């Protein structure tokens, strides 16, 4: 694999699209700019935020700036012993 030497992202984000109201504050807060509002609508009629799938640095600002209790969950890469 060509990506074998690429460092994995330090963080990861999941978004519960049905709890998201599409306010976009996480998009504003995202430093690496890997969040965006989706083109599709959720069942409430909002464009939910979406993670690009890579590039998250695990800063957590999207979580802190999200007004919903559980719409965003941020993960960090667990420290693994150097292989």
């Amino acid at each position, binding site marked *: 694999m060509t990506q074998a030497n690429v460092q*994995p992202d330090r*963080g*990861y984000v*999941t*978004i*519960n*699209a*049905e*709890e998201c*109201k*599409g*306010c*976009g*504050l996480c998009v*504003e*807060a995202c430093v690496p700019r890997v969040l965006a509002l989706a083109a599709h609508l959720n069942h*409430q009629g*909002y464009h939910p935020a979406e*993670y690009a*799938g890579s590039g998250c640095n*695990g800063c*957590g*600002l999207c*979580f*802190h*700036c*999200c*007004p*919903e*209790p*559980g*719409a*965003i*969950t*941020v*993960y*960090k*890469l*667990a420290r*693994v012993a150097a292989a």
Partner: protein
Amino acid sequence: MAEVPTGYTVLHERPKAFYDTFERKGDLQGQTHYCPGCGHGLAHKMIARAIDELGIQDRVVAVSPVGCAVFTYYYFDTGNVQAAHGRAPAVATAVKRSRPEAIVFSYQGDGDLAAIGTAEILHAANRGENITVFFVNNAVYGMTGGQMAPTTMLGQKTTTSPLGRDAFNEGYPLHVCELLAALEAPVYLERVALGNAKQVMAASRAIKKALTNQVKGLGFSLVEILSPCPTIWKMNPAKAQERVREEMVKVFPPGVYRDRTAEAQTRPAPPPPPRLEELPRLLDLEAHDFTPAADFQPGALDLRIKVAGFGGQGVLMLGEVLAEAGLLLNLDVSWLPSYGPEMRSGTSNCHVRISNRTIASPLVARPTMLLAMNEPSLRKFVADVDKGGWVLYNARSLPADVKAPEGVHVMCVPFTELADTLGEPRAGNIVMLGALLEASGILSREAIDRALEIHVRSARWLELDRRALELGRDAARKELAYACV
């Protein structure tokens, strides 16, 4: 939801201090009811996180306001009390004082805290209550549809300031932190904003600190949170956030307005409230050791007494002694004073009812006894006296032009002059009381003596009043004997 790749662990997730599901809505039980981009959701989340981090969830009692945040109790899995508009600091005070181990915070908007609740917040802060207040300031009434708030900025258009707030017409925006910083007691006052991620993180720290202060028992903490209201401001959430960081912070500068947490001492726990059974003693309401004589048979008793004079003549006191004696005899009594604002020399009268039946109204419109300490009182009430009733007047005779109604007994005795012979004109009321008792034969002598002891604390006055009572009885006996001739 996307699968989380292996090797990642949760860093930030839904705080535990929230309920798992919000029961308010049929579906969407993970969402708040707030509009997209609303600052309330952020503030709630920061508070919930702080509660998690401090490990105090089972001790927290949230006091929610009136306004958009009224449903706070649907979200925080803590104790919850919903207060009347603006009264949250008073309710929080009560909760904290009665449950000192609880961590109590009030959560209020600007309409709630800075308008109708201005008095409550000022006094709770001034008392230095060991509570935490989160004050969400979005410069407008949100829930009710965008009216001007005390914190509306100059020039800001609202439905009730359609031309923009004008200082000369609507006054200036109220600066709550600055106002409270003028008080001695608050320990911690900080204003934060929710205008961008950096400000949000600072707000989060302030919120945690304000709760920590209470955990340490340091005293009153308030965090003012400048918060976006995209819906009422008619802006998208990002624009509303921009307004917070560009406009609001200029009017309401963020910063620490008071921080005495380093030097503050832990406030002593409030003294425990007295036990219920101690209250009669503390309030001096203990049952008096008195048993009516076995032969006391009041029969169908309905005394309606009006005592009238000027302030300082002991009018109210005379009435109290009568009512107390009635109480001692296990009768129903009422005592209703009526007087002007003057402590001395204004008109003063009281209505006393003593009955062996339930008293429906303490008013005495048709007295069976009028005790008139002076001429104006006599003139005012003499025509009201019921047939068969008594008029006692503080002079040798009625004025020439005053006649008592048909069938009403009249006794004219210069009670104050008699009291003069005791060297104390102020005992005139008791002289009159003695005459009343003698003339009417109501209430037992023992009950009156005991009532006098209860109401007269000074030994000198008690002795004087006993002599005054006898003087009145003697005078009445002479009058009655004369009348019989």
